[in-house]
């Protein structure tokens, strides 16, 4: 369980996140949505211990601000929006960096060739020998996800749930891989872990999130299940955009929803 209470973050004297209360529970995908610049990423950085914050964050019963990096790394892994590498690492070498903390939690039979397994999960089977810098943005993002999965391969370790923090995990992916990645997240949660994901696609959010936290101008605007939160009023208030939820486009305009994926 992650419990954030009254969390605020200032950057260069400006309040970016103000008094946010947030919970992430094992078994659930908690989605953070909101317009650009609403403080989502900054909040996630506070939650991952990267930025100093006011308020409290409790990670599995321990105070985050008092924990060592290695203790935190055992309990949660973080996927940033994009990662630029400075040296010519192969894909396998990048994924293997996820194991640097040494507590993947993989079963004895699985721990050999964990990088290959993780790559296969993100649909990059056979990419291990390629150079990271030669891949497309979407492929790089999936390599990073494979690295993150290696870090917390077992969703539960020592009886404690572990967490995936995903900052826009599907933003640079095609529809097939959006679904694959979100399914991995859901699977991680089903097996006892917790997921915190910043998402922009409201359809994917509605489809996969167990709870939605809506951020607006650094504050929490709404919390609840997709059914409760995704309303015409809220979207107009937060995104400043008049939309009708659940209304089909007029006439014969084609539309493609992830929810309509077959099989």
């Amino acid at each position, binding site marked *: 369980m992650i419990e954030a209470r009254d969390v605020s973050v200032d950057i260069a004297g400006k309040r970016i996140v103000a008094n946010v209360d947030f919970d992430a529970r094992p078994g659930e995908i908690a989605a953070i949505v909101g317009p650009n610049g609403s403080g989502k990423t900054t909040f996630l950085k506070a939650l991952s211990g990267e930025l100093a914050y006011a308020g409290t964050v409790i990670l599995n019963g321990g105070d985050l601000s008092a924990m060592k990096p*290695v203790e935190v790394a055992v309990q949660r892994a973080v996927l940033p929006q994009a990662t630029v590498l400075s040296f010519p690492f192969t894909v396998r070498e990048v994924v293997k960096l996820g194991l640097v903390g040494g507590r993947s939690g993989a079963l004895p039979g699985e721990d050999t060739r964990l990088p290959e397994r993780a790559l296969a999960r993100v649909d990059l089977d056979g990419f291990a020998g390629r150079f990271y810098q030669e891949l497309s943005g979407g492929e790089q993002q999936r390599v990073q996800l494979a690295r993150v999965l290696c870090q917390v391969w077992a969703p539960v370790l020592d009886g404690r749930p572990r967490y995936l923090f995903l900052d826009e995990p599907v933003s640079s992916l095609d529809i097939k891989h959006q679904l694959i990645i979100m399914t991995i997240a859901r699977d991680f949660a089903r*097996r006892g872990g917790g997921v915190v994901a910043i998402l922009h696609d409201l359809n994917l959010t509605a489809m996969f999130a167990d709870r939605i936290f809506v951020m607006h101008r650094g504050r929490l605007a709404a919390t609840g299940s997709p059914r409760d939160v995704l309303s015409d009023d809220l979207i107009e208030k937060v995104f400043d955009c008049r939309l009708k939820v659940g209304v089909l486009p007029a006439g014969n305009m084609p539309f493609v929803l992830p929810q309509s994926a077959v099989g």
Partner: protein
Amino acid sequence: MVDQSIAGTVKVTGVSEGDRSARARAVILLLCLGLAIAVLLSLTAGASDASAVNVIRDWLLGTVSGDAARNARDELIVYDIRLPRVILGMLVGAALAVCGAVMQGLFRNPLADPGLIGVSAGSSLGAVAIIVLGGTILAPVTALLGTLALPLAAFFGGLATTLVLYQVATRRGQTSVATMLLAGIALAALAMALTGILIFMADDGQLRDLTFWSLGSLGGATWAKIASVGPIIVLALAAMPFLARGLNALALGEATAGHLGIPVQRLKYTAIVGVSAAVGASVAVSGGIGFVGIVVPHLLRLLIGPDNRYLLPASALLGASLLLLADAVARTIVAPAELPIGIVTAIAGAPFFLWILLRKRGVVDL
């Protein structure tokens, strides 16, 4: 507990593609061999025809070959002139190459090099201050520290430069390369200007020392010098392998390295202190020897990849070997005179470095 993975649906191919560790280990073995050859070559080559082979054979077998006077001379040359020089060359070559690799990992950039970004200039300033002012203003310091005064002054000069550089070039965990290089140039210019003032104050004897020393040389290597800087370099180098995993993670950025559980601040400060100590000690005994720190890691990354667990020991071995070879060239090419080794490494290293940049322009992004 439920199944930890969906291993059943995962196809895992047979070979470990993209795993260069076996190759790296093979290269390290070859480099060990190469270093042994370089050592032997250095012990044998020189202005005198003294034969290291004979001396080593006599020493191993307890035999005496040839006439006694000649043997005594050869022994003197090999033990007291060439051997200290070889050991010092190995220490300095290993230190410069490893420090280059560590700085490149720390700044996340293949262009970071103690010589290029002003660390060596800072060390030189410290060392020159002791050489020129050691008899006058800084006499209490030299009296207190003895032979350690020079390496320690070089260490603090390098440390100060590196700390300032890091503060200037790094903002919120991101190191700007342009800022780093420009700040390095500015700091080097400042250090060299201050060094210039000191040189202006130097007397004729000091001047001769300074000129030769500033171009870099392993000449004048003695057991005493090795005793004063050897432990510093060995200690600093011994600490570096513990940084390897952290430096690997740092390639993903400081934030991500932290997420992986690396204590990033401690890693950075250990690296900076270690590099300053090793570069300072090297500069103190051998002056400014350039390009080893940038060419060696670069070359090895092409061969075995950027994994610091292999890159650091391989750099130490190749750096030591190359410096010994450069020194052998410096000692023999204009014999009986001697070329400053810094000239040899620059003449060989600078075009090589340009060639790498041209060839790898797409991959090595600035």
